[in-house]
């Protein structure tokens, strides 16, 4: 009974704040200004405490907020603009940061004034992230960072970066990592474009040369960086695997379009296309089911399969789409132009999407790593014998 009253009260509170937000909305308002108000009213993340963009109520009300804002025609796309911040950074900072850190970083992140990036992978630490070798050495109230990161999305326009580095090479690899937030404009940070097979440099290499980071920018304890990194990755993978799409959208849409545009009628190709349609729809329904179960508080195995299934299927469907184009699939309209996009690149030609999809089973955790995680954490299968787990990091074989 008292629960019901609490629920009613929370809903009333959220509704009141929404009214307040929307009553002050004016279509000519800059989106950033609107998002600032949304934050200040506690409607950025309703589950966060008051004063930090939230109202301290159940996260389920966030859906209501988003629907109402969208219905009013007010801007909702800050998450897409600052995905690495809002999609991943916010969760990590709220879980591991101090009040002061939350105060400093959350608001400008939410308004997209400060863009964020994630500095995890290194040339020698891909799937084996814990093997990272970029290092930080303490110097009074500061840390001095040296090393190299790769595959950093949008690093060239980011203000802040999430940066796990090695602070103790003498302990086993998972234990000697500390997690910092680095000012990407600091001296010694060098961001260089990293071109992919499409010719785009969606990613960057980032070099750190005696970069100084205040100790106040450290998240959680010294040596706790692995745990913090895991929070970040988990958020990323759930985010990739739980994108809810309408039926027939995404890459299957391109395939259906190519089928019609190229006027196909071969039943063998039709069967293959239908198979992809069915697999895509089953994936979509699984994401939908997982999201429902997650919201209902009874998450099951269906919640962890999305990223893996999506990667393989998206690769296959984009490849098939180009196949449906026959000779036209051998073209690359516009040719390869090495360039550096300033935001997440949208969809392109089928050929470009086909090439871009090759990374789906690598980025955000390779499909091999995802299968390990599903096998071990969800199915409860034992891990492999590890040669690297208990050795001091500096003694682990590296080829």
């Amino acid at each position, binding site marked *: 009974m008292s629960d019901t009253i609490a629920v009613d009260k929370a809903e009333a509170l959220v509704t009141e704040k929404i009214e307040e937000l929307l009553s002050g909305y004016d279509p000519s308002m800059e989106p950033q200004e609107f998002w600032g108000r949304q934050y200040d009213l506690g409607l950025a993340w309703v589950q966060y405490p008051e004063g930090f963009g939230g109202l301290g109520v159940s996260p389920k009300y966030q859906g209501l907020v988003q629907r109402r804002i969208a219905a009013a025609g007010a801007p909702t796309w800050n998450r897409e603009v600052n995905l690495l911040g809002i999609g991943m950074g916010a969760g990590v900072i709220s879980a591991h940061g101090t009040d002061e850190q939350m105060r400093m970083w959350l608001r400008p992140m939410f308004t997209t004034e400060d863009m964020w990036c994630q500095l995890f992978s290194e040339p020698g630490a891909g799937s084996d992230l814990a093997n990272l070798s970029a290092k930080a050495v303490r110097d009074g109230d500061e840390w001095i960072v040296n090393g190299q990161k790769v595959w950093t999305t949008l690093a060239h326009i980011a203000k802040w970066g999430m940066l796990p580095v090695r602070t103790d090479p003498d302990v086993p690899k998972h234990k000697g990592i500390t997690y910092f937030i680095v000012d990407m404009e600091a001296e010694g940070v060098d961001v260089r474009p990293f071109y992919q097979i499409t010719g785009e440099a969606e990613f960057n290499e980032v070099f750190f040369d005696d970069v100084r980071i205040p100790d106040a920018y450290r998240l959680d304890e010294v040596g706790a960086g692995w745990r913090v990194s895991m929070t970040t990755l988990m958020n990323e993978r759930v985010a990739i695997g739980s994108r809810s799409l309408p039926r*027939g959208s995404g890459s299957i849409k391109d395939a259906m379009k190519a089928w019609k545009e190229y006027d196909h009628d071969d039943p063998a190709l039709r069967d293959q296309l239908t198979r992809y349609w069915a697999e895509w729809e089953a994936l979509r*329904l699984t994401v939908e089911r997982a999201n429902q179960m997650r919201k*209902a508080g009874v998450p099951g195995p269906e919640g962890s399969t999305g990223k893996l299934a999506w990667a393989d299927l998206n690769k296959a469907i984009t490849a098939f789409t180009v196949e449906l184009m026959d000779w036209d699939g051998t073209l690359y309209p516009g040719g390869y132009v090495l360039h550096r996009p300033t935001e997440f690149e949208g969809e392109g030609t089928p050929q470009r999407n086909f090439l871009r999809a090759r990374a789906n089973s690598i980025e955000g955790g390779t499909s*091999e790593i995802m*299968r390990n995680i599903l096998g071990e954490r969800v*199915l409860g299968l*034992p891990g492999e014998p590890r040669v690297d787990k208990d050795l001091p990091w500096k003694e682990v074989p590296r080829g």
Partner: protein
Amino acid sequence: MADTPRVTFALTEEQEMLRQTTRQFLEDRVPPTFVREMAESKTGFDSALWQSGAELGWHSLAIPEEYGGAGYTFAELSVVLEEMGRSLFPGPFVSTVVMAANAILIGGSDLQKKDLLPGIALGETVMTLALFEGPRGAGVGDIAMVAGRDGDAWVLDGVKLHVLFGEVAGTIITAANTPGGLSFFLVPADADGLSVEHVDTLDATRKQATVTFSGVRLGDKALLGEEGSAGPVLDQVLRLTSVALALEQVGGAQWCLQTAVEHAQTRFQFGRAIGSFQAIKHRLADMMVSVEHAKSAAYHAARVVDDSGEMLIAAPLAKSVASEAYLTAASDTIQVLGGTGFTWEHDTHLYFKRAKSTSLMFGGVHHQRRLLADAIGL
């Protein structure tokens, strides 16, 4: 395409309880030893089990209260079907409760419903449908038998193949072409001129018979509903059957996954549990993904049975996706179990044979995808 219906996947508390009691009952009463007994028996039917299931309410779940049922929906029935698939439940449940009951419910007159459905709900009746005359039996177009007219009587001559549990059905609903179109006839098992012959099946837990009509004479009352009305009814019944089989497949596939995982956790080779090898671990992860996809497609279908437009998509989607998931799961479970999985002694082969057999019934995956392609406008 119309808007995609959004279904609620979570079970209600009542449905969740139904799952628990069903699973518990099946574990107690339908252990693998019993399944094997039924497989080795000629009819594959145990009347005590049949009656117990009816007492638990399984038969009446999706039958409206006015016809002696409990008035729940297919969503409740789907819970039972999934659990039946998990336990390899033997017996004419699908043919009676899904196929015959729905043929009557959709195609029968009100009188026929009142007359026939309570018997099904109570577990007093076993029925089946005798539809196809050749191996390619998946739809209305595959039925060629003609019902002739002799005075006031309809006369049936012909052979119907692959009749599920034909030997134990008290009433066989068959389909034949009349001047008015395709018509369903209710044929009592003891009708003159009717003979039912056992055939051996790959999946010995699901029996089939060949039903021969030699001048079987029937009155107009034997017509189910109107003369010539069977075509669209059969379409609907076959879609419901596909969904029912998909739910069974989901249950069976989960048994496979669980069995393979447990084996991989406990079987040691090279000093390690074999589930620690990526070859096994990744195969099982992939199996889980496809089982989860099959679940989603089957659960979705079970919740849209009343949406005839959506069922054109949902039914073949469920059957094709669940067929492939179950086939792969059963086949891979044999591989994970190694030699053990290839023995008669271990239960996996029962599931494997069920998986293959079910995937072929009422149109295999290619047929299902043709239906789906039509439905999505390809």
